[in-house]
């Protein structure tokens, strides 16, 4: 089915990284991202150190470089924007072959490229080792407002249901010879999207009735959060704190 698979990010495994509680991994991820973003763009060696930290975490999680590389492709459209910076940037210019490039623009492009890629790679390690429901309970444990984790939870739960309905509507249209090629032929598709919106709204009402029927009174019970031991925190934060220390030295020095 063409519908998105809400759990496609997760890779089954029994590594130590998989076993860590989700909220611990989220804190570790946050530290790595802040360290990467805070590192001055000229300190190329420090970025290499960050990369080593992330590669080490991926190795502990039994994730291959090829897998991480494949997942990084999702960042490509954003990085494509960075390629433009050397051409449109102002200030000093440097001539490379037939091209005149902005020095500031080149640094800007490098900064977007390296920071974006490293932060994304760290996120890939966490999302590939943590199921989505565990990530949501982890966020709840970190005191992220309940309303946000609830909305995200319902989104995860119903994304496939709604994508499945959309897919069936498209199949039903195709079965009657509908094959839009141009935007102005998309009226039927747009109408079905509207119908889907109404149906989703009605489903929302039925789900709410089902929740009320089981005693819901405006607050979801907090279920399934696992407690973290000191050893969990130490194991999870060892590598991110190395990255943070490297970033701190780079900022001070």
């Amino acid at each position, binding site marked *: 089915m063409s519908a998105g698979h*809400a*759990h496609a990010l997760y890779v089954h495994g029994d590594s130590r990284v998989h076993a860590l509680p989700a909220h611990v991994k989220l804190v570790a991820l946050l530290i790595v991202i802040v360290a990467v973003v805070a590192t001055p763009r000229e300190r190329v060696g420090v970025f290499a150190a960050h990369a080593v930290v992330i590669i080490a975490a991926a190795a502990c999680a039994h994730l291959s470089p090829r897998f991480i590389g494949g997942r990084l492709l999702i960042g490509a459209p954003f990085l494509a924007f960075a390629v433009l910076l050397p051409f449109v940037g102002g200030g000093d210019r440097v001539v490379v072959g037939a091209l005149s490039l902005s020095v500031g623009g080149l640094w800007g492009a490098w900064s977007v490229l390296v920071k974006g890629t490293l932060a994304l790679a760290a996120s890939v390690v966490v999302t590939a080792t943590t199921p*989505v*429901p565990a990530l*949501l309970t982890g966020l709840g444990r970190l005191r992220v407002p309940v309303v946000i984790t609830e909305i995200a*939870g*319902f989104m*995860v*739960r*119903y994304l*496939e*249901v709604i994508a499945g309905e959309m897919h069936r509507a498209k199949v039903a249209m195709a079965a009657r010879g509908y094959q839009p090629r141009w935007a102005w032929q998309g009226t039927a598709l747009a109408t079905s999207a509207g119908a889907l919106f109404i149906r989703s709204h009605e*489903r929302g009402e*039925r*789900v709410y*009735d*089902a*929740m*009320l*029927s*089981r*005693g*819901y*009174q405006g607050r*979801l*019970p907090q*279920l*399934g959060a696992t407690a973290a031991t000191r050893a969990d925190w130490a194991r999870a934060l060892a590598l991110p704190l190395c990255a943070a220390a490297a970033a701190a030295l780079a900022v001070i020095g």
Partner: protein
Amino acid sequence: MSAPALEVRGLEYAYPDGTQVLRGADFHIHPGERVALLGPNGAGKTTLVLHLNGILTPDGGDVTVAGLAVQPRTVKEIRRRVGIVFQDPDDQLFMTTVRQDVAFGPANYGVTGEELDRRVMGALTAVGMAGVVDRPPHHLSLGERRRVAVATVLAMNPEILVLDEPSSNMDPASRRELADVLAGLEITLLMITHDLPYALELCPRAMIMNHGRIVADGPTAALLGDRELMSANRLELPLGFDPSLARPERLPAP
């Protein structure tokens, strides 16, 4: 005789657009009874069910569950007593894992820790679904989701189980598995269904609803065998099905 597990008297309800759906529905069900609610589409069956636990408030009449009247101040306890399994399991199973979904009801009533785990596993075991406890509901088949939906309600220890078309859209094997689960539960049961052989198999008593009223109430086999009554209420037996010839060993004791 014991006090009714469920008593409905003169229930009347019109939707906000003015459509009158319930026009004085009257019936009662005693503890341990298994009752099928039959009737054509639009008879008001699902609307009736939404009154049993106070989701809808009637324009007239009242509902009493094991001696407790459905009122705004009793509605929380009523919803624990009346376990409704909705027709579409995707409406019923809204959490991200089966465990969280089954725990949702009891957790709303303050059950926590080991007792909550015990309730979750007990309910899932009762429907033969303990093996999927950590799976996301949308990865299960329809038959599995229906059984998990029954577990979400059983975990609340209800007085009466209300099922809205439990066998719809299921393949014959899943339909059979669900029937075995339901037959094995020692609980008062009210089952809305268009599946007349299913009603005959699981419920010794049946009621027919039409135009917002209960128009017939009696032994299921007798109701299904009454051709005039059946056709007057747009009910039809499957081709070749004769309720008087159904194998007696599969029928519930009256």
